[in-house]
């Protein structure tokens, strides 16, 4: 009866199955609990996510063969697996941060959509077929559109949701068109088989570049690379802060996973054609993100532009097309995810009390809440790429890969941009540590879920920068899959 | 002489080929002729149906029905047709003329299209489409479109309201209808209507009476017949979507409705009552045709009967009934039928065991549904009035009160 489904297939989608079960739990508890208990849905979700991580690490680690499963839809390999764990970690923290947000933490729908979005991401990470890829991208995006516009009564949130939706739908339509052309010209939807067709010269180079550009529109939207970045600042500003955090980290990481996988499997034989395109995108993304961040007065917009800039840095590693480059990119994504989640977590904590996301609201934060100030110091220095935090080592890695690939100009642009970045990150820290404000006596309470999340993330940032080898090894194993 | 229809078709084919036409062209001409014949028979049946329904209505409502024109009033519908043909066509001001005039044609066409896939007898079938069931659903959509177009283009608020209601109703009731259509598909292992009829040993109404019931109810909603005739509710929106139509344009909607009811009867006969099946139907296809028509009229009669006995329901009741009762019920039925089918096929059960288990499962579901309904539905509380004597002495006179 179920003859065609075996254990390895089940293990390959173990996180997805468990996520689905978790969604069922949240569904039921949302129904039976009343409003005073619904906050506990956050604990259930966060606990469930971390439980899934643990079980997957114990049972679901991919073997060495990294074979195709589910009729060629998925590839159960370390690249996918590592990212799956990363997404689940991001979702855990997001669920924790969401618990004490007004109008959000007590809504079962929020956690449900978060779970479904994570489900889509985990499938994105391992899909090896165009159909599966497209559907999982949609399954990721659709809940995020809703989450971005979750505060219906808030005009900015509604605008954010609508903008994100319109932009996303357009990008996804163009990407789908690219997918369908790719299928039409290569005659297959399997990512590896497409590589075979391209290698055999079965595709006209003009068409190859055409489909590639169309697909890059969709991926560029997900990772908010220039020129598909317009949505990011407005959406991050308007969306609920925790959602913005999730958008800028897990969603972006998912975009990078598929970008890396598609470019380095399907389009690997044509790497000369896309390398230059991607290098230009990377340069533009870094430069534009950093220069526009300089002018920002709102911390969420600043973080949005900074996240655009970081997408540029990560792309450097991809452009290098080497094992070192991809290792660097993957490591960078890990560090970036943890750091930026912490940044948005702090913004959420402060925003809850001060009711403002302006940078001036952070005046004297170190006096109001020293520990929060310290966390902010760690996070922003890591974002700026200062040792001994995680941000430093990964920047070194991607720049090194660029140098190794003889892309000196790209490395130079990267370094230049890091310096610009340092400036505006330090301005924020100046507000936190040097400026004074009238209500310095008012403490900023950090509730338990926030405390847990921020402590884990801050320790993580330091660990990533100090104890490098385990993370580096994981990234290398994941990167090896592609070479 | 056992198969006169194919006899005629073969003769015609020979004749055309004898005239020197190519085989392909002959085929096309024959298909055309077949389509025209089926459509004409359908339209002619409607004239008879109108008389029949009025007669049935008369009997149920304790009157005589039409009885003046011709014997038993048989010529009454012809008189009506002549009258309606001589009426003036009016087009309201500000109407969207093109859409306004296409709508009635589509209303009839959408129904006639269904007849293309119905097997009338073992040898007489328009086209044996392997997705016949899906085809029925697809074509049904055009009926909905025609109502929408009529409502939109009439430039009349009642017409628009009728169209609103039609969308709410038809789209909703399509869901239980599609799901109940899946039961015959599961039993017959095919979506083709020819295969479904051939697989009916025993009739599928025995295998799944519940599916048949759901299908009939949902179909009644699809054809806008009472108790589901909300979109032309006279007391609320005058005549609904066809309020502005006059003459034969109105007649088209009228014909379309009657034909649709008849088609529902044909579908019930085909899907659940064994189609043309019956004693000696395979040897003598003409007998199959007769069986098919009898069964169709049974289906037609059921719909007419319900229409004439049940009052119109409110719009919220209509939606509640569908979304909270019919749809969940049909889904439960589908899941149980599918699982049972899988198990019974795995254990290689005999046909009669299969049928018996399916029948019992259906009965069980019906019983459970009734029990659940008894428990959950809140009956409107009957107000208990204390018994009072018809006449009572005035209360002022205290002396009359019995001392206790």
């Amino acid at each position, binding site marked *: 009866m179920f003859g*065609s489904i075996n254990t390895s297939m089940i293990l390959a*989608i173990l996180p997805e199955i468990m996520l*689905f079960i978790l969604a069922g739990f949240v569904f039921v508890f949302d129904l039976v609990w009343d409003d005073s208990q619904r906050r506990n849905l956050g604990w259930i979700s966060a606990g469930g996510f971390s439980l899934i991580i643990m079980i997957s690490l114990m049972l679901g680690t991919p073997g060495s063969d990294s074979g195709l499963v*589910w*009729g*060629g*839809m*998925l590839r159960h390999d370390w690249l996918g697996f590592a990212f799956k764990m990363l997404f689940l970690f991001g979702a855990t923290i997001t669920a924790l941060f969401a618990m004490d947000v007004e109008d959000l933490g007590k809504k079962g*729908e929020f956690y*449900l*959509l978060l779970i*479904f979005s994570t*489900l*889509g991401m985990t*499938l994105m990470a391992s899909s090896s*077929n165009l*159909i*599966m890829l497209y*559907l999982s991208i*949609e*399954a990721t995006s*659709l*809940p995020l559109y*809703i989450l971005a*516009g*979750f505060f219906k009564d808030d005009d900015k949130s509604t605008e954010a*949701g609508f903008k994100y939706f319109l932009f996303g739908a357009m990008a996804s339509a163009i990407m789908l068109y690219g997918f369908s052309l790719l299928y039409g010209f290569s005659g297959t939807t399997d990512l590896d088989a497409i590589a075979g067709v391209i290698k055999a*010269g*079965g*595709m*006209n180079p*003009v068409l190859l570049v*055409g489909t590639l550009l169309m697909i890059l529109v969709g991926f560029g939207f997900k990772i908010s690379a220039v020129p598909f970045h317009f949505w990011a600042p407005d959406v991050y500003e308007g969306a609920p802060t925790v959602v913005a955090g999730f958008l800028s980290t897990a969603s972006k990481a998912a975009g990078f996973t598929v970008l890396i996988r598609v470019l380095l499997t399907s389009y690997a034989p044509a790497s000369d054609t896309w390398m230059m395109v991607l290098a230009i995108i990377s340069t533009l993304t870094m430069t534009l993100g950093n220069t526009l961040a300089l002018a920002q007065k709102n911390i969420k917009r600043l973080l949005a532009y900074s996240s655009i800039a970081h997408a540029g840095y990560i792309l450097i590693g991809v452009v290098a097309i080497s094992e070192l480059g991809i290792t660097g990119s993957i490591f960078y994504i890990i560090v970036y995810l943890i750091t930026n989640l912490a940044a948005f977590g702090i913004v959420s904590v402060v925003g809850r009390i001060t009711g403002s996301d302006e940078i001036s609201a952070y005046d004297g934060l170190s006096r109001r809440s020293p520990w929060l100030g310290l966390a902010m110091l760690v996070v922003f220095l890591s974002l700026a790429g200062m040792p001994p935090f995680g941000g430093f080592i990964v920047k070194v890695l991607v720049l090194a890969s660029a140098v190794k690939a003889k892309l000196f100009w790209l490395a130079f642009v990267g370094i230049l941009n890091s310096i610009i970045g340092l400036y505006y990150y330090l301005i924020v820290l100046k507000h936190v540590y040097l400026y004074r404000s009238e209500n310095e006596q008012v403490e900023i309470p950090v509730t338990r879920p926030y405390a847990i999340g921020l402590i884990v993330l801050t320790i993580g940032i330091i660990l990533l920068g100090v104890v490098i080898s385990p993370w580096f090894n994981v990234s290398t194993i994941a990167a090896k899959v592609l070479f | 002489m056992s198969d006169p229809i194919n006899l005629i078709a073969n003769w015609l084919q020979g004749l055309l080929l004898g005239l020197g036409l190519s085989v*392909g062209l002959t085929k096309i001409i024959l298909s055309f002729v077949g389509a025209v014949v089926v459509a004409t028979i359908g339209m002619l049946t409607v004239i008879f149906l109108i008389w029949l329904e009025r007669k049935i209505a008369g009997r149920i409502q304790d009157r005589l029905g039409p009885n003046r024109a011709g014997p038993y009033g048989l010529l009454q519908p012809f008189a009506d047709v002549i009258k309606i043909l001589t009426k003036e066509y009016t087009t309201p001001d500000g109407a*969207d003329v093109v*859409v306004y005039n296409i709508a009635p044609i589509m209303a009839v066409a959408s129904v006639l299209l269904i007849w293309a896939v119905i097997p009338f007898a073992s040898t007489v079938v328009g086209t044996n*489409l*392997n*997705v016949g069931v*899906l*085809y029925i*659903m*697809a*074509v049904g*959509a*055009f009926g*909905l*479109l025609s109502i*929408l*177009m009529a*409502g*939109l*283009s009439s430039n009349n608020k009642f017409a*628009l309201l009728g*169209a*609103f209601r039609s*969308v709410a109703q038809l*789209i909703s009731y*399509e869901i239980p209808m599609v799901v109940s259509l899946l039961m015959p598909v599961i039993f017959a292992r*095919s979506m083709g209507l020819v295969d479904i009829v051939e697989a009916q040993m025993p009739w599928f109404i025995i295998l799944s009476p519940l599916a048949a019931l759901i299908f009939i109810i949902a179909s009644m909603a699809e054809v806008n017949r009472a108790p589901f005739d909300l979109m032309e509710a006279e007391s609320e929106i005058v005549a609904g979507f066809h309020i502005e139509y006059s003459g034969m344009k109105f007649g088209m909607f009228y014909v379309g409705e009657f034909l649709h009811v008849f088609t529902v009867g044909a579908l019930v006969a085909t899907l659940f009552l064994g189609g043309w099946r019956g004693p000696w139907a395979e040897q003598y296809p003409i007998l199959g045709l007769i069986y098919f028509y009898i069964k169709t009229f049974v289906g037609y009669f059921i719909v007419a009967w319900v229409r004439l006995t049940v009052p119109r329901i409110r719009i919220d009741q209509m939606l509640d009934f569908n979304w909270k009762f019919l749809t969940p019920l049909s889904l439960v039925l589908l899941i149980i039928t599918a699982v049972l089918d899988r198990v019974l096929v795995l254990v290689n059960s005999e046909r009669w065991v299969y049928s018996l288990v399916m029948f019992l499962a259906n009965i069980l579901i019906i019983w459970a549904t009734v029990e659940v309904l008894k428990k959950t539905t809140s009956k409107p509380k009957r107000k208990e009035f204390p018994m009072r004597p018809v006449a009572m002495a005035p209360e002022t006179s205290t002396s009359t009160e019995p001392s206790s």
Partner: protein
Amino acid sequence: MTTELILFFSLALIAIITGLGLLISKNAIYAALYLVLNFFTIAIFYLLLGGAFIAMAQVSVYAGAIMVLFLFVIMILGAEKLGKSNTVAWQRPVAIILSIILLIEAGYVLFWRTAPVQAAQTLPDGFGGPASIGNVLLNNYLLPFEITSVLLLVAMIGAIVLTHKQKTDKEV
């Protein structure tokens, strides 16, 4: 062969005309009805190719469900007549240039293709029928099929979340 060619070209003509009608027509209802016709023509193309199931699904899903909802929305909004469209000044020339590029690209693909056209193969029995589609859908494409259900569930939740009016204390 010739009958098929005649059929194909007449259908293609209808498809193109209805497609153009959809773009050009100023009345939203006409545009929607043109689209219905267009879907219907495409369904007939599928039928000619032997994909009866896809054809019927196309008609019942697009023409039946989606377009009816389109018309419903048009009706509710009363937006039959399009107002003066406020297009951006550079929109039209850019659109024309892009469509010319697309046309050139299509022509390029049509006339200078790299791989020779393969002769049409005879299809296996039951190809495109419900049984074979079901087999493929629930074996090879099981996972995408299931994900689609998640997508629909999310869409449903989203529709409810974004439109459901929460009863606050103020309103009660």
